[in-house]
């Protein structure tokens, strides 16, 4: 009975994820945030089943709008647009979506196998970590999310510092001193990161939708369900992409700071180089183009979850939100996770497999319904999402102050993003803030002076490796991805 209930949670989560992922503008991150807000009082296993279902559904749902209206439902589906939409224009939308869903299933399963093999290995290695390494790992995660965010690296780092400052509000984790509350009682307990997440990802998106003039209308178009299962000939043509796209996706997903969008773009680029005679020229509806992007973005899920669970470092904004939701439900991903909570690791693996399979079949069966959902008018969507954000933030602690904070974070997130400041580093800093500070101060007390502390980072081998990785992240970002705004 309990298993059936869990399967039902995964199923509902997947349906919610598919719908939200398909709607342009409603990102996977926002989907997961809203889903998390529903699960505050739930038992941990039920909540995880629901959240993982929504996550996998959201990733797969993004390809529906990418193919049918040329707008990726999620950032990870951005490369699917290149060949998916031209295929729709040629009257082969069913085939394009069929390929996208089928290879997503394969890519997703590859990512999960990757996680199953690599997770325990990384977990064993991570047991060698002490306070120094914990601190540096958190710092590396923050660095990567800040430097790899869109726009200027300086702004990404400033956003991370701002997030840390917000995390300092309330009681000091070691001495219990009240800091930065300015005598305001509502700030005494600090600002809950879930509230900030709902504001910065959910409510911010509402403000973005307010200024988006374009509405989508899909009339007189329907998928033929039978054609959504790709034919053997097409599978043969696209299967070779699996050889490189799946490992590329999983490995890029593994890197903190790089998510499904980067994996899909790299995989698409490599496929263009490798396949000399595609079914059609790339950009004009090549089956291989759709396959390369979709395999990689789904394989990246497994890679990202590996880093999240074994090192406690989220790869991108979605996994940052996942980390927050794991903390909320009492799971503590990080170096000791594989030692103390190994059974949860395998449970998450199982949930991922089931969610990916559910997402495939529901994606096909519900494709026409989701197509109709794309026609939902803005005057309905805006109050609907606003209500979900408000109720979700209130439900956390039954506090109206949380609702006020959430709305303020929403506006702040909107203003900052319009000004070129990424919001993901703020959320990640809020989640990791207490861990970074505690480990830094413990390390400082152990080493007894700032000079000794800095020296110890160079004398401990693992610390030195992480330090080099942090340095390389800055260097590579500065060299290759520098942007003016």
């Amino acid at each position, binding site marked *: 009975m309990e298993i059936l209930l869990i399967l039902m949670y995964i199923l509902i989560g997947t349906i919610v994820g598919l719908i939200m992922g398909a709607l342009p503008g409603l990102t996977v991150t926002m989907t997961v945030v809203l889903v998390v807000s529903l699960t505050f009082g739930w038992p941990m296993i039920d909540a995880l089943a629901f959240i993982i279902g929504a996550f996998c559904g959201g990733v797969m749902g993004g390809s529906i709008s990418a193919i049918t209206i040329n707008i990726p439902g999620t950032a990870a589906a951005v490369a699917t647009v290149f060949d998916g939409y031209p295929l729709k224009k040629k009257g082969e939308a069913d085939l394009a979506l069929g390929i996208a869903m089928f290879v997503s299933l394969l890519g997703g399963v590859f990512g999960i196998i990757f996680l199953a093999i690599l997770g325990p290995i990384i977990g064993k290695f991570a047991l060698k970590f002490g306070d120094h390494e914990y601190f540096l790992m958190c710092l590396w995660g923050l660095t990567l999310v800040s430097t790899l965010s869109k726009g200027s690296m300086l702004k990404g780092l400033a956003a991370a510092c701002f997030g840390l400052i917000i995390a300092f509000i309330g009681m000091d984790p070691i001495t219990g001193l009240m800091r930065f509350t300015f005598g305001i009682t509502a700030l005494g307990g600090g600002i809950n990161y879930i509230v900030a997440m709902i504001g910065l990802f959910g409510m911010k998106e509402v403000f973005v939708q307010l200024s988006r003039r374009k509405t989508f209308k899909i009339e007189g178009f329907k998928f033929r369900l039978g054609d959504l299962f790709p034919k053997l000939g097409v599978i043969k043509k696209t299967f070779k992409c699996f050889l490189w796209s799946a490992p590329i996706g999983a490995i890029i997903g593994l890197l903190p700071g790089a998510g499904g969008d980067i994996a899909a773009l790299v995989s698409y680029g490599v496929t263009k180089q490798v396949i000399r005679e595609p079914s059609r020229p790339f950009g004009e509806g090549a089956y291989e183009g759709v396959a390369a992007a979709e395999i990689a973005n789904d394989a990246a899920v497994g890679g990202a979850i590996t880093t999240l669970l074994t090192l406690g470092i989220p790869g991108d904004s979605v996994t940052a939100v996942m980390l927050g939701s794991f903390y909320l439900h009492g799971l503590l991903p990080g170096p000791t996770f594989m030692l103390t909570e190994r059974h949860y690791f395998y449970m998450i693996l199982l949930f991922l497999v089931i969610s990916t399979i559910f997402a495939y079949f529901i994606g096909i069966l519900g494709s026409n319904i989701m197509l109709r959902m794309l026609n939902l008018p803005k005057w309905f969507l805006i109050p609907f999402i606003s209500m979900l954000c408000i109720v979700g933030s209130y439900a956390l602690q039954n506090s109206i102050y949380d609702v006020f904070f959430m709305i303020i974070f929403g506006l702040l997130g909107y203003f900052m993003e319009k*000004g070129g400041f990424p919001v993901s580093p703020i959320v990640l800093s809020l989640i990791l803030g207490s861990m970074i500070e505690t480990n830094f101060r413990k390390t400082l007390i152990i080493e007894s002076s700032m000079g000794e502390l800095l020296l110890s980072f160079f004398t401990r081998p693992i610390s030195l490796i992480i330090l080099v990785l942090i340095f390389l992240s800055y260097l590579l970002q500065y060299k290759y991805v520098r942007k003016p705004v």
Partner: protein
Amino acid sequence: MEYSKILDIFSILVLFIANILVFYNLYTFVTVDKIPVLTIESPLIFPFLVALTLLILLIAIVFTQIRFWKSFKIDKELHAEDMRDLRNTIFYFFLLLLYSYSLPKLHFKLSSFLFVLGTMFFFSRGELNGNILKKMLILAGFSFLLIYSIYFVFSGIFLVILP
């Protein structure tokens, strides 16, 4: 998302204000509570280092952005659209605050119904045809359905106590 110079300046100002508040609070801790900042056991050392880093970053950002702003040309049409968006955003922000403020007073169902109806009416301008009474009736029906669905899911299924 389209870049906005005004909001870029605004964001930098917000970060500066946050930074000043941190330094002010640290100053009061040192002078009033006599808690030192730069000792290894101090609970203020890490916030101080972060605030200092943010200050340096903000100064660097201002310098790089000044160069960028000088070369940045404002499209008048786009600027007018931006201003309209900003007005809509701020209007909606205050509407949300008003709704949140009214939640404990009018309770969930009534305040949410008024909020959703008002929002739907505002954003459906030019989209729904027919006379205003008919339009209000349709929107009231949608609002009622939406509120009761959310109430049922949160309160009935997930047992969340709504205000």
